[in-house]
Each structure stands twice: as C-alpha cells, then as structure tokens.
C-alpha cells in the first residue's frame, strides 16, 4: 500500500532547540500539506505545496517556522527556536493534484517541547 511516511513519530525536545520533521509523500503525488493538530485548535493548515512550490503558508508563524520541499520525495517542516506552545501533532498529507483531491495523511509527528 502506498502511504505517506513521516519521521520521527515522536519528538521530545527542550525549549529553544531546533526541530525538523520530515515527510515522504506518496510517489506521484504533487501536492503536500502540513497540518498541526491540537485539542484547542483542531487541524490547522500550516503550509501547502504544489509541484514543490509553496502556494500558501499563511497559517504558519513565519518567525520560527519554515517549510520546504528540497525534492519531490521530501518535505520538511522546521521550528527554530521551538517553544512549549508548539507542542502538538504535526501531520503531513499528500494528494494527486487534481481539484477536489482526497488527501492521504501520514501517521504524524507527536512533538513535545518542554
């Protein structure tokens, strides 16, 4: 089964440290989304790529977050410096790139910033 792969599954770090989360989208998919899930805010869209180009990152705090797609098989989300309020589950999802596409989610990265 084709699936979206996210690493690491869990990350515990101290405030101020850099955090890098990685995502391997499904082969052939050309859209990639990063979502953050918390109990209070639900699923928030952080960034959205199509054909590796960032289309929308308005939901992402620019001062500390950055998202990139160095190649078609890898998307990264970095937080530097991390803060306790960044603790959440971060999901990557990919889609085939057609209007109204369904998204395939990875298993997520559970981030805890102490």
């Amino acid at each position, binding site marked *: 089964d084709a699936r979206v792969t996210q690493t690491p599954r869990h990350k515990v770090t101290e405030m101020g440290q850099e955090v890098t989360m990685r995502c391997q989208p499904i082969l052939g998919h050309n859209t990639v989304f990063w979502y953050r899930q918390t109990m209070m805010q639900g699923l928030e869209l952080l960034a959205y790529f199509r054909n590796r180009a960032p289309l*929308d990152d308005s939901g992402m705090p620019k001062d500390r977050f950055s998202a990139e797609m160095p190649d078609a098989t890898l998307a990264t989300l970095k937080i530097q410096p991390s803060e306790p309020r960044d603790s959440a589950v971060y999901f990557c999802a990919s889609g085939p790139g057609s*209007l109204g596409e369904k*998204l395939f*989610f990875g298993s997520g990265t559970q981030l805890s910033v102490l």
Partner: protein
Amino acid sequence: GQQVMQIPQYQHVQEGEDFTTYCNSSTTLSNIQWYKQRPGGHPVFLIQLVKSGEVKKQKRLTFQFGEAKKNSSLHITATQTTDVGTYFCAGSGTSYGKLTFGQGTILTVHP
C-alpha cells in the same frame, strides 16, 4: 479567510442510536470532504461531495451537501462501537485544492 464550523463538538450515544454532525462554511465551497480519525490515528478520507444538493451513502453513513454549497452533514444510522472516532469535514473554496478543516465531532459509542 474561509472558515468551516462543525457541530456538535462532542456526541455520546448508545450503540444502536443514530448520530449526525453538521458542517457550515462562511463561503461557498467547490467541494466538501469528510474524514474519520480513530483515537491515536490519522485522518482517513471517507467521501467527497461536489454537486449542490448531493447525497451519497456508504452503508450506514449518509452524506449531504447543501443546495447553496455552504453546509454539509454526516448521518450514521444505528451506530456501532467501530464508529468511535472524530469526524471532520473539510472544505475547498476558491483556492485550488486548499482544504480547510472543521473542528471535528468526537463520537463515543457506549455498548
């Protein structure tokens, strides 16, 4: 920006009872999708609705898209313990492919 509101936030039912969650968008949607997330899991696609007034069924699940394409609902008939989880609607408006998720409805089913 586009906002998608979903109610109720929580729903507790006895096994065998029906369940409905509602989704409302601040803007007209080009399509709406529904996802299910099991506890500790990730969202999994259930269905997509595109046409005004569209109704789709998947076994005990019935999905509707409003005539104005601004609201949707998911109805589960005779819930089972396997239905437990969080149900999300997600709407796509004028931004090509960008999905905005509702807050989700957490469903618990008591046997």
